[in-house]
């Protein structure tokens, strides 16, 4: 029987109850059941399931990946490609944009690539599972570690023939970030290849 629910108040309770009833149910089945019970579109229910997963109220388990390539080719690997794209876009914008309409984008991506991405990639490499740190801790550590690491890159560059100039700084910062992101992706892939509750 269909009934109208308050999305914020009742829907989470319905989802929790449905998960308790059918342990290791698929997302599709869960959404279908709750959508029918609540009289809401499937996408609305799916969105709330997604939020509950992100808040740690639900676990979502995927069939273990056979290798890192399969992980990177899956939706779980999208994280790696997005961060890689942001890093490379920062490099391109800083090298190519010298003025004009795109300058604000240069400021934005430049700030992100110096003040966030190096630390973020370290945090992801050190804590690949995702739930070891609270999101705010992850953000604070990302910014703090970036502020610690970037001057060290400058210090090392000072003793190289290239010196502390724009191109060596940008290239080494990008290379360091990509290397750490790749380490993080490989560690995530390793974790994702371990069978968990529903697949043991």
């Amino acid at each position, binding site marked *: 029987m269909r009934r109208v629910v308050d999305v914020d108040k009742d829907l989470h309770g319905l989802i929790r109850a449905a998960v308790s009833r059918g342990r290791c149910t698929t997302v599709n089945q869960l959404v279908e059941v709750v959508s029918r019970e609540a009289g809401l579109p499937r996408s609305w229910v799916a969105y709330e399931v997604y939020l509950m997963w992100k808040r740690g*109220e639900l676990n979502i388990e995927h069939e273990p990946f056979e290798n890192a390539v399969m992980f990177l080719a899956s939706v779980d690997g999208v994280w790696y490609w997005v961060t890689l794209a942001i890093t490379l876009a920062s490099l391109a914008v800083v090298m190519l944009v010298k003025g004009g309409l795109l300058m*604000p984008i240069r400021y934005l991506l430049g700030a992100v690539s110096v003040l966030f991405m190096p630390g973020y990639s370290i945090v992801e490499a050190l804590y690949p599972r995702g739930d070891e740190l609270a999101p705010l801790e992850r953000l604070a550590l990302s910014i703090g570690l970036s502020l610690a690491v970037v001057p060290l890159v400058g210090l090392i560059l000072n003793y190289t023939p290239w010196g502390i100039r724009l191109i060596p700084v940008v290239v080494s910062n990008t290379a360091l970030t990509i290397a750490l992101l790749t380490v993080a992706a490989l560690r995530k892939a390793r974790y994702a290849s371990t069978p968990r509750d529903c697949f043991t």
Partner: protein
Amino acid sequence: MGLAVLVLAALSLVTVAVEAQQPPRSLLLAYGNVSAIGAEGGNVTGLVATLNEAINLTEAGQYDNAVGLALSVLNQAPALARQVEQMRFIEAVAYGALGALAVGALTLLYLRRRELVGSLWLRFRGGDRVTLGGGRARGFLTDSEVLAVLTGLVIVFAVFLAAHSLTGVEATQFSAIGLLGPGGRIGGYPTSVAVNQTINLYVLVYNHMNRPIWFVVYIYVTNNTTPPPLPGSPLLTYQRVLLSNETWVAPLSLRLNETGDFRLVGELWMYNPLNLTLTYTGEYVQLWVNATGG
């Protein structure tokens, strides 16, 4: 005491003798126009190159050719100034449109977040299994605390951006002169040299005046401690128009042919783009060198 210094080489750039001619009035006027257009954000790279060519010609004594180049710059300047004005208008409209578009897209995305995110997520995660979680959050952009911090950062960034676009210029304006060692880097400066030994250094000038500036560097070699600007004629003069944010590194080679303690001084002067007079910037560099016999 007479001081004799032999200059061995000076650069591919403009190096002139002590009795440098006063630049033609048309060249100064052209420089003033180009500097003004540059201050408004116009691309004056080509015009600055022409001005530098005209300065070279003036130093080489080809006064008429220099004036010809200056006049060609003066002819091109009004059209470029109009173009800059149009570009600024188009830029303002484009920024407004892009801002409105971004705000509209973000609003739409927020209003339709359930349909968009929900259906996409269901499409890619539909086959995954669900169990009750342990309560440890994992979402970066779904966490309210993180979003609050990010909102704060966006507000600060937006205020900075708005102030920057409204004022139109960067607040800090300065110029700088530096002396680099033989390797073209800071350090490794000679302190003691043999008479007639070649001293290789580099003079560095940086323009952060937010507009093209005509810089003049006077090089003196003296044995007194008078603070700059030094009286008398300089040993060497370097001059060049630098674009905003441009760095200019010029090699400097010389030999001392007497023993004693000598002071190499580089003074930075500039033609004020507003009144076109040569003005001392107050910035200088110096290096004490002891010349020894044999």
